[in-house]
């Protein structure tokens, strides 16, 4: 089993493995997801970086010193505002709301491609490996000036895809 783990993971595939995610203090435990919209931080490497800490108005993210520490996420303090999402230079922060509907959840993610989709568009939801895994309806596209050209898109996906979908298929230019 150890060999398999050495083969896949962030350093060999560019995709964090399930084990790497679950080991990261920024990744919420699955029982937390039932609370409502919360942030999911998929930061698994010790890069010197901490803007997420300063961005959160509720103090739900702590990096501390040294700044290579992985961000520690306090789900009690998170109200799902998503201010941290466009700030992360690694685009590694997402928001998931499992309480959206009985069978549907929403996923919010940073997006820096053109053309941006519009509310109501039905697009392909893609997973961390770039594979299309389900249909996704665009619920909201936020691109205020303060986000500095990082849009935050929220899509509606089947609940069981909420921890898989992390972006949408780019439209042809």
């Amino acid at each position, binding site marked *: 089993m150890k060999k398999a783990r050495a083969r896949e993971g*962030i*350093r*060999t*595939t*560019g*995709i*964090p493995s399930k084990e790497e995610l679950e080991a990261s203090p920024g990744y919420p435990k699955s029982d937390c997801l039932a609370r409502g919209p919360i942030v999911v931080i*998929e*930061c*698994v*490497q*010790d*890069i*010197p*970086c*901490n*803007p997420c800490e*300063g*961005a959160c108005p509720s103090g739900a993210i702590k990096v501390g010193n*040294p*700044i*290579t520490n992985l961000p520690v996420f306090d789900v009690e303090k998170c109200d799902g505002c998503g201010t941290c999402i466009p*700030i*992360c*230079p*690694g*685009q*590694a922060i997402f928001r998931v709301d499992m309480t959206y509907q009985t069978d549907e959840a929403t996923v919010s993610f940073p997006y*820096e*491609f*053109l053309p941006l989709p519009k509310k109501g568009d039905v697009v392909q939801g*893609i*997973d*961390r*490996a*770039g594979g299309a895994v389900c249909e996704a309806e665009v619920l909201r596209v936020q691109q205020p000036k303060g986000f*500095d*050209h*990082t849009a935050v898109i929220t899509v509606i996906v089947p609940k069981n895809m909420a921890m898989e979908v*992390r*972006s949408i*298929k*780019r439209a042809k*230019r």
Partner: protein
Amino acid sequence: MKNTDMVVVGGGAAGMAASIEAACAGAEVVLIDENERPGGQLFKQIHKFFGSEVHRAGIRGIHIGRDLLKEAEEAGVQVRLNTVVYGFFPDKCLGLMCNQHTEELQAKMIILATGASENVLAFPGWTLPGVMGAGAAQTLINIHRVLPGRSVLMVGAGNVGLIVSYQLLQAGAEVVAVVEGLPTISGYGVHASKIRRAGVPIFTGHTILRAEGKESVERVVIAAVDKSWQPLAGTEKAFEVDTVCLAVGLSPLAELAWMAGCQFIYIPEIGGWVPVHDENMETSVPGIYVAGDLAGIEEASTAMEEGRLAGLAAAEALGCLSSKDGRARKAEVWERLAALRIGSFGHGRALAMEKILRAKGVG
């Protein structure tokens, strides 16, 4: 011959930061850059930077560049653009050339911040039009708003390869694959994740065998490699592309430091031959300082801090800063630099810097 307190050669991140610190301390500073505007690599870095607030984390490179430029102008730095420093002559005399006119400029202190140039990889077909450095592609798309091609193979999964792949996607090109000879991705995982989400496969343990095409690149063939970098038979894969970007490392542009007689040390992890310097960024030649990629390939954030350090140290040497103030200000920079050289990505660079400091002590 004209004289000045300080000349900074190279107006990129390190050079601008150095000029600002020195000018704010009261030195007469001339900043020279061969391009028609300063900023070096900063204006190509359209992504948000890492680090902490003091390192301008979360801000895009272009904004940092604009801010530095404004600061330099406000500090009274004399900026000479379209000017090449073509020679380093005795007694800290620099040969300048601008608009087909040459002149000499002598300075008490010189800070070299000339950056680095891209390495190349030779393979059959590497001279076909369509093969270029990743940095060159980045300049084309981010500065000149021109696509180098429609479909790209990126060679190298360091930060440059990953970031430029992402930016090529943003610009509307297709990146069919990234190949990396090492078994792991050396760049930040988050940069890799962004392009994996966008559907770009990353082939670790692979290299490019050849590029094919009549008048330009039409196709590439890649293959897996063994531990000795030999291609493994039967693992060839072909891709139809019109562009091959090489992101296989950078080497310091150290000609002026060589001419000045600076001592060098060879450290492959940070680009090969780098000028030996102390914790003040001063080389083995008194009065000559280095900063940025010239002093060892790292990042924009370390380049800016090294620039500030060199600027402060040179200003102190000129007498513009008391040694008490100088030490205090430098201590702040050393702390900020140290914060960037930790963790699995920074540790190797920290060791390299230690090697350099030890060499300076001996030499």
